[in-house]
Structure formats: structure tokens, C-alpha cells
């Protein structure tokens, strides 16, 4: 050992580290490549031998099956790609609504773990331990069972003021009739958000420059509401609402959330909120004790300390694990298939059975989730960089 000469670089001998590394890499790449080739070659041979058709051309064929709920207009004669699109939209719908609700609930519970009130602390702790230690699939199945078991039969809905209906067919509620005015109101809403954002950025700059505190919450909300109202007025102030009305086995008009959607949503939100609460708790706990002490010695009230001192610092710790919780929620939404919600996995398995294109359909599922995962990661990484400590 003592007499071993130092390894020489760039030497075509077995003793050269660089050479060994090169050989090792070549062997590994060759092995992986060979494995993939072997599997692909088998698959092709199997398919060829029994005349199994393959390829993505089926995406242009008419799908031929209905989908229970859809946000975009879809008809059974539409091609397969559109059926997949309906599935993707359904997946995204439950994932996005779920992420928003789980974030709100999770943050509240995470902060609740630091409450001065022992009961609140205890309840939050019990919530986290209970919901994160039971498989999410069981939670989904349970919620769905509770919905379909306890709600009244389809023909005898509970009605509230004749406009809200609740039954095994789901929750129905009125929506505005689509018209030009609704469009301008939505445009006003979008403009309001942009305006509020700009105002808030300006107010923050003013605050940093002059120390004058301006309303950072009430004013932006007022801007958004006012702008939406103006948009609504500009569009002629339409007041027509589409009110759901029981008609045989279905509801005419209005909009509704099916028990499948509600079951998936509730299951995912309650499960993920428990994890988000833990992420938030860990983030808050990571802020040095001295910060809190400094804030209280400056005379900052407790809720200001939380909002202005602790949360902004905790956020930097929270964002990376929060991202992976968002990704988990999106991926877990694939379990919707177990309770009959037509998400992308459900559409893909139907397509798989109708066309026999198993490889293609499962590839589509994987590609959809890979794309959402990677784009969420990119988005959250961008936000993470923005909120990272700016060294001066």
C-alpha cells in the first residue's frame, strides 16, 4: 500500500482510473442498451407473430364511447385523442382544485400546531397523524362509499331553496348563463388580478423606499372585485342564471359535481393536507428562535410576527418539499380510476381494451404524468429561486 504509485491519468492501462471509468461506462451503457433492445425486439417479435396491431394511428379513429363528465364538449364520435384530452382535463381539474384546497387547509393546520391553545394544537396533531397514516386509496374509497351510501336517492334529492340539490347524483348548483356579459366579467376579473398584482408590487416598493405601510390585502381584493364588476356592467349586466331542475333521472341546467369528483377531491385534499401541514410545521420550526424573540422585543403582536417574520423565512424551507407534495397529489389523482372518475388513466384503460394498444395507452398515461410533473417542478423551482434569500 505504501509503495503504490499515484494513479496515472490518460494511460491505456488497466491501472489508469480514467481508462477503467471509460470501460465501466461503456459496459453499463451497452448493458442497459442491450436490455432495452432485447425487450423491444421481443415485443415487436411477439406482436408480429400474432398480428397484433400497433402504433398511435388509433388516436385519429372515433372513440365510440361516452365519458360521464367532461369540461370540454365531447361526443362519442370524436376521435380518441379528444377522449384522452377529456381525461387529461379531468385529471388537471381535480389536481388543481385539490392543490389549492390542500395548501390552504395544510397551512392552517401546520400553523395550528404552534397555537397557544392546547385543544387546537391537539386537534391539529391528531389530524396529521390520523390522515397521513391511512392509505389514500382507502380514504378515497371510503369517502366515495359514504357519499353513495348516505346521500338520498337520485329521485329524492335534498333541495335548498329549489336551486341547490344534493343526491346520489351529486351536488347541483346554479351557474350564470354564458353570454357576452359573463365573458366581459371574466375579462374584468383577469384584468383586476393583473392590476392588483401591479399595485401590490408598487406598494411594496413604496414601503421599502419610504416605510409607509399601504393596504396589502384589502386594496388588491377591492381592485379585483371592482374590476370584475366593471366588466360585468360593460357587458350589459346580464342576470340570467341557469338553475338546476330535477327532470327524470337527471338535472336540467345548472352545473354539478358528481360523487366521483367529490370523493376523489376530498380524499386527496385531506390526505395531502396532512403532509403539507407537516411541511409547514417543519418550515416554521426551522426559523431560529431568536427571530421570534427579536420580533416580540420590537413589540410586534403575535399574528404580525407570524405573518411578517416567520412565514417569509419559513417559505424558503417549505417550497421544495411542498413541490413534491403537489406532485404527489397529482400522481395520486390517478387512483380516481378506482371509484369511476373519468381521469386520464380511466380513459386510457378503456381505450386499451377497445383497441388492444396496451403499450401505446400506458405510454400516454406515463407521458401525461411526466409532463405535468416536470412542468410543475420547473414552475416551483422558478418560484423557489425568486423567494430564495437574496444575498446583498
Amino acid at each position, binding site marked *: 500500500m505504501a509503495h503504490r504509485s499515484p494513479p496515472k491519468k490518460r494511460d491505456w492501462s488497466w491501472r489508469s482510473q480514467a481508462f477503467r471509468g471509460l470501460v465501466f461506462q461503456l459496459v453499463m451503457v451497452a448493458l442497459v442498451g442491450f436490455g432495452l433492445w432485447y425487450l423491444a425486439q421481443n415485443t415487436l417479435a411477439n406482436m408480429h407473430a400474432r398480428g397484433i396491431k400497433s402504433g398511435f394511428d388509433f388516436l385519429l379513429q372515433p372513440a365510440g364511447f361516452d365519458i360521464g363528465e367532461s369540461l370540454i364538449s365531447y361526443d362519442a364520435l370524436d376521435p380518441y385523442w379528444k377522449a384522452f384530452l377529456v381525461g387529461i382535463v379531468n385529471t388537471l381539474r381535480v389536481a388543481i382544485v385539490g392543490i389549492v384546497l390542500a395548501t390552504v387547509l395544510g397551512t392552517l393546520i401546520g400553523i395550528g400546531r404552534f397555537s397557544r391553545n392546547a*385543544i387546537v394544537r391537539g386537534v391539529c396533531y391528531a389530524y396529521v397523524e390520523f390522515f397521513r397514516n391511512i392509505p389514500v386509496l382507502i380514504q378515497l374509497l371510503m369517502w366515495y362509499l359514504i357519499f353513495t351510501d348516505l346521500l338520498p336517492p337520485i329521485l329524492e334529492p335534498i333541495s335548498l331553496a329549489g336551486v341547490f340539490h344534493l343526491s346520489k347524483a351529486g351536488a347541483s348548483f346554479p351557474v350564470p348563463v354564458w353570454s357576452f356579459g359573463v365573458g366581459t366579467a371574466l375579462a374584468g376579473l383577469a384584468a383586476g388580478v393583473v392590476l392588483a398584482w401591479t399595485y401590490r408590487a408598487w406598494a411594496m416598493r413604496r414601503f421599502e423606499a419610504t416605510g409607509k405601510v399601504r393596504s396589502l390585502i384589502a386594496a388588491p381584493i377591492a381592485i379585483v372585485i371592482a374590476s370584475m364588476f366593471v366588466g360585468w356592467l360593460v357587458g350589459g349586466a346580464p342576470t340570467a342564471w341557469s338553475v338546476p331542475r330535477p327532470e327524470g333521472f337527471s338535472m336540467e341546467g345548472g352545473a354539478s359535481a358528481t360523487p366521483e369528483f367529490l370523493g376523489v377531491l376530498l380524499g386527496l385534499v385531506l390526505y395531502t393536507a396532512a403532509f403539507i401541514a407537516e411541511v409547514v410545521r417543519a418550515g416554521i420550526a426551522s426559523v431560529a428562535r431568536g427571530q421570534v424573540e427579536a420580533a416580540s422585543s420590537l413589540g410586534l403582536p403575535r399574528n404580525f410576527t407570524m405573518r411578517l417574520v416567520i412565514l417569509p423565512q419559513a417559505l424558503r424551507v417549505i417550497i421544495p418539499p411542498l413541490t413534491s407534495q403537489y406532485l404527489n397529489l397529482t400522481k395520486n389523482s390517478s387512483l380516481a380510476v378506482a371509484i369511476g372518475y373519468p381521469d386520464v388513466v380511466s380513459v386510457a384503460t378503456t381505450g386499451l381494451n377497445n383497441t388492444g394498444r396496451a403499450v401505446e395507452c400506458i405510454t400516454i398515461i406515463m407521458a401525461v404524468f411526466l409532463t405535468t410533473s416536470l412542468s410543475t417542478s420547473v414552475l416551483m423551482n422558478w418560484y423557489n429561486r425568486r423567494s430564495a434569500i437574496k444575498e446583498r
Partner: protein
Amino acid sequence: MAAVFHPIAPRPAPARTRGPMARIRANLFADWMSTLATVAMLALAAWVLPALIEWAIVKAVFRPDANACQAARGEGACWGVIAEKWRFIIFGRYPFEQQWRPEVATVLLLGLVTVSCIRSFWKPWLGILWAAVIPAFFWLMGGGFGLSRVPTDLWGGLPLTVMLATFSIVFAFPLSILVALGRRSSLPAIRTLCVFYVELIRGVPLISVLFMASFLFPLFLPVGQSPDVLLRVLVGITLFAAAYLAETVRGGLQAIPNGQVEAARSLGLTYSQTQRKIVLPQALAIVVPGIMNSFIAIFKDTSLVTIVSLYELTGAMSLALNSDANWRPFKIEGYIFIALVYFAFCFAMSRYSLWIERRVSVGKNR
């Protein structure tokens, strides 16, 4: 004008900060918000708890009597369904008279897992024990050598859950170390392969991996050569778990200061010696809680194999109740039962994880 001395009124004695009354005040009625929360919570409890107790205990039916359950439906829980079906829920479709076998096998496996969790047993013989117990488990479950054969499609219930979770973590562990080392390797091809593997697996849901293992994989192999579906699913979960575990292990590796590696190299240790003797022992000690969390996650995720028709705990429960019209209405009770089983396992593991986390950080906090 003569100044008149007005003494300020004496302050009251400070509130007691000790004793039960003071604790209650500080914890429940510190300010009006806290008081409001306390009152609201107590009111909620007073409203919900009696109804819950009445449903779960007072009016519940505990004996396996479907008619009594039917009569109490809507008012009381039917725990009789558990009394009637627990063997089916726990053991699935495993032949009734042979059920001592999965019982022994599961106890053996759980015992070994528990032993492996205790630090003073982390000796070489533990590895040998694992190498002995894994074949013993398959022998007990599958038969042969004196025991009657039980095909894998009859395996089910808790033994299957425990088996899938334990074996996938045990097999994923070495793989994940290799992948984690590969991801930090200076060899670009190796690094790319490892990054690709980890990101690909972490980007897709487990269910698609299971579909792949269950429906597609037979197509990738020559006709008639594909392994048993249980084995395929086990491999699928293992590959899935390994990607997540690799990230945990990589976190541990990153926590080892570079100076350690430099010191080892300057002592003349080779790459594999450095990793085996210096880096991994330190890194793995840090990541034990992370591994435990992965184990909990995988334990819960095994419930997904019911979607590809393996009847583990979740699947066995729905099979048991769906196949019997008399008991089908009491699925909620069945779900509560298996939820409690999962909870018991996962909660115990998370307690252990916390405990070991504190043990590991003892050195840091001295």
C-alpha cells in the same frame, strides 16, 4: 403651586404561572381568540362525540348476526361483520385449513423487521438471517418440501401486504445505494443513466408502473417465459421504491463533508473503499429516518395492487364483503377496520422513525 405627590396605584400581584389553574389559563384561555377556539371546539365535541359514541358503541351490533345488523342499520355500527369475516379479510383466499402458514410466515417476517430496527442487532448475522427468512417465507406461503402447494393467486390479505412492503424495501435498498452513488459519480454516462431512471420513475404514478408490470411486461418477454404476476408486481414496486429511496440516500451522501472523502483519498483508499468504509456508514446513519418514511409510504402504497387484482388487505376486504350480499351494506365498518390496521402499522413505524431520528442526532446536539 405645590406639587402634590400622587402615588400610582400599586400593581396587582402577578398572575400565578404555576399550578393547574394557571396552566389551563395559558393553554386554553390566553386571549379572546384562544377562548373562542376552546369554546368552539368543546361545542363541536359535545355535538359530534355523543352521536359517534352512540353509533360506534351504544347501538352497535358486535355479534356476527346479519339480521341484527340490518335492523340497526343507520343507527349503530355493525362490528359483527368483522367478527364474521376477519379471517377472510386478514388472509384473503388462502385455503382455510392452511392458514397457520401465512400466520407463522408473517410473524416471522415482522419479527425480523422489528429486530432489524434495533441498533444493537446491526451485525453481519442479521444479513444471514434475512437470507434465511426470505426463502422460509416463500416456502411457508407457497408450499413444497412437505407442505401442500398454494398457488400465488390464492395469497392475500395482510401477509401479502407485509410481504410486498418488506421485500420491496429490502430489495430496493441495495439498488438505491448504487443509484445514489451513480447519480453523484463523476462518470457522465453513469450519472445520466441514474438521473434518467430516478426522474422517470418519480414522474409517473405507481399505478402506471403496476399496469406495466401486470399487463404489459408479459408482452416484453418471449411467449410463455414471463414470471408469476406476483413477482412482476413485486419487481415493479421495488423499482419504484428504489427511485425514491435513492433520493433519500443521495441526501445522506450530500450531508457528508467533502473533507471526509479527500481525507480518505489522501490515505490512499480506493473509490470503493472510500464509499464502503467512510462515506456510506455515516450517510446511512443519517438517512435511517428517511428510509423508515419510505417504508411507511410503500406500506401504504401496497394498497394499490388491488387495482391490478392482487387481493392484499384492501382487496381481500372488498372481496370478502362484495361476494356476500348479506354483509355488503356494512363495507364502511370493513374499511374502518382495515384503516385501523394500516394506521397501527404506520403509526408504530413513524414513532420508531422519530425515536431513531433523536438517537441519530444525539451526537450532533451534545
